[in-house]
């Protein structure tokens, strides 16, 4: 932080002008905050409201009833797609998908970045350029190829198939992040280590990895959030009990019930949104720091 006092454009000129300027800014900022918070607040409130409450007071209203019942129903009892175990199995489907996919794609991305920045070879820059092309490739473009690949590998409608897809699709990002971070590690460190007798893997383990936590945290948060929230691949390549939670939510609301179970649906949606939210709450500051942090001196 700079230790000079920051220039405050709202703190200059006459008293009235200053008051007005502050007022306008705070009202605007407040409105925007409200705009973003209200939907979340509505869903949170609804997850505790009973069905009669909904029919009497409508979808958006202050709670006239309060119960944790809908959370427990959503978690373990409600019937989704023929089974009545709540969204719990789908939640764990997502966990089983996101954990290995995040770890594997981050690990390979880190290794890719190391090779592309510190062990350059003829054509490595071109290769890197091609890999980053994946960042800009929309998922719809690769649906058919993936369908074919999963079919050939016998991984259609499996969690393993989704793990594979997310590992490969995520590599562009993880490689880009890690390579651009590792470029800032001075080459002299690698040279010194080579003279010291360390090889490719030892340099990676002992020199590069210990310098990596900031970018690994960024990569993990990014991958975790994206894979957890991903819908397209999950929707196309999984069905029935193998669905991740994002897809199961659709099945839940499109269920056969005549009446919409608003409370349960709200609780389910919030449960599904919780893991990325928690990851961001605990890792958010590392995320911002990792993205803005410069070279290792």
């Amino acid at each position: 932080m700079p230790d000079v006092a920051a220039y405050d454009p709202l703190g200059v000129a006459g008293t009235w002008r200053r008051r007005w300027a502050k007022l306008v800014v705070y009202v605007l900022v407040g409105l925007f905050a409200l705009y973003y918070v209200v939907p979340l607040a509505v869903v949170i409130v609804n997850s505790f409201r009973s069905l009669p409450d909904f029919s009497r007071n409508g979808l958006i209203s202050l709670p006239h009833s309060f119960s944790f019942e809908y959370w427990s129903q959503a978690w373990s009892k409600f019937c989704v797609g023929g089974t009545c175990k709540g969204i719990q199995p789908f939640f764990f489907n997502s966990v089983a998908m996101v954990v290995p996919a995040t770890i594997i794609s981050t690990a390979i991305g880190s290794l890719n970045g190391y090779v592309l920045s510190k062990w350059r070879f003829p054509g490595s820059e071109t290769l890197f350029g091609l890999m980053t092309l994946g960042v800009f490739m929309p998922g719809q473009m690769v649906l058919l190829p993936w369908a074919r690949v999963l079919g050939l590998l016998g991984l259609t409608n499996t969690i393993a198939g989704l793990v594979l897809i997310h590992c490969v699709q995520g590599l562009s990002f993880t490689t880009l992040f890690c390579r651009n971070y590792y470029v800032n590690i001075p080459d002299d460190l690698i040279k010194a280590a080579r003279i010291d007798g360390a090889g490719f893997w030892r340099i990676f383990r002992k020199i590069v990895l210990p310098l990596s936590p900031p970018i690994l945290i960024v990569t993990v948060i990014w991958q975790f959030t994206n894979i957890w929230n991903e819908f397209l691949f999950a929707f196309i390549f999984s069905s029935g009990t193998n669905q991740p939670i994002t897809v199961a939510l659709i099945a839940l609301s499109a269920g056969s019930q005549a009446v919409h179970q608003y409370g349960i649906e709200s609780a389910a949606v919030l449960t599904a949104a919780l893991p990325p939210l928690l990851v961001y709450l605990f890792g958010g500051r590392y995320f911002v720091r990792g993205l803005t942090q410069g070279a290792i001196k």
Partner: protein
Amino acid sequence: MASLTIRNLNKSFGSVAVLKGINLEVKDGEFVVLVGPSGCGKSTLLALIAGLETVSAGEIRIGERVVNGVPPKDRDIAMVFQSYALYPTMTVQGNITFGMESRRVPKKQQAEALARVAGFLQIQNLLGRKPSQLSGGQRQRVAMGRALVRDPALFLFDEPLSNLDAKLRVEMRTEIKKLYQRLGKTTIYVTHDQVEAMTLASRIAVMHQGTVQQFAEPRTVYDRPANMFVAGFMGSPAMNFLPAQIAVSGPAAVVLAESEGQTTRLPLPDGVATRAGGGRRVVLGIRPENLTRYDSRWAEERRHLGTIQAPVEVVEPTGAETIAVVRIGSREVIACFEPNAAPSVGDTVTLGVDMAKACLFDAETEMLI
């Protein structure tokens, strides 16, 4: 301990030839400084010796062994980098023992080597610190410790002092010299600083545009530079160059061109004039310290003393001496004065030139005559 032999070494990056036919014979126990302006190829040469780059053509031998295809770790070398290249996540101790761990040296031996080096460099109290907690000079010491602990055949230094402030640089220079005098290891030292080269080297290799211009003892490089590039690069303030011609008649002398009407004749030692040949167009090289206020008492001591009248344009006192820019013909020339004999701007001084120490270069080839 080992010698280093480099034969017809070439290195190209793509179509750019960085080193062109380098030949160097470094004797066992010599301190050789590679010096030159940036981009002359000196750091590339060091990287080739270290094995960090691959040789395009030619041969490098450490001792009797050709090391062209040998990886850096097996060359029995140690290197100190300009950036120090200390491993930032390791303690000083970890930095020093990393190489031994990589080579699976037994723990007991590691501890002994660490204690020896830490004592030698007086860094025992720093062993638990991280590099970020060290000052520039301390980092420099640790970097040297990492090199010393190897007890290698060959020490390589890549501009190790250029990141230090001026005062510390001079101190560390002396330390490196002490270190060398105690260990007597073969050392290759890269720098762009000609003072470092002069003070440290047993021999200097002056490099320019990918070739070695001169490889000789510091005194020779300074007094008898092989060509105008070496003459201009070594020494500060730099050598003055004046176009001239060898006198055709009369006593052996050189006649300055551009002297605005007046003919300035400067006497030459007989041998030099004969070697050059009468009438030949030359460039006269005079170091500023050999160009100073004329003193009549010198005439007896110095046989080849020339005099030049010149107006003074700028005076720069440095304390120990006063440097003045004077005009000879259309050229600005730098002369050195005793501070108490310094001229003022606007004066016309009579300068004495010690022609025994002057250098003559061929006007075409720029080579020393």
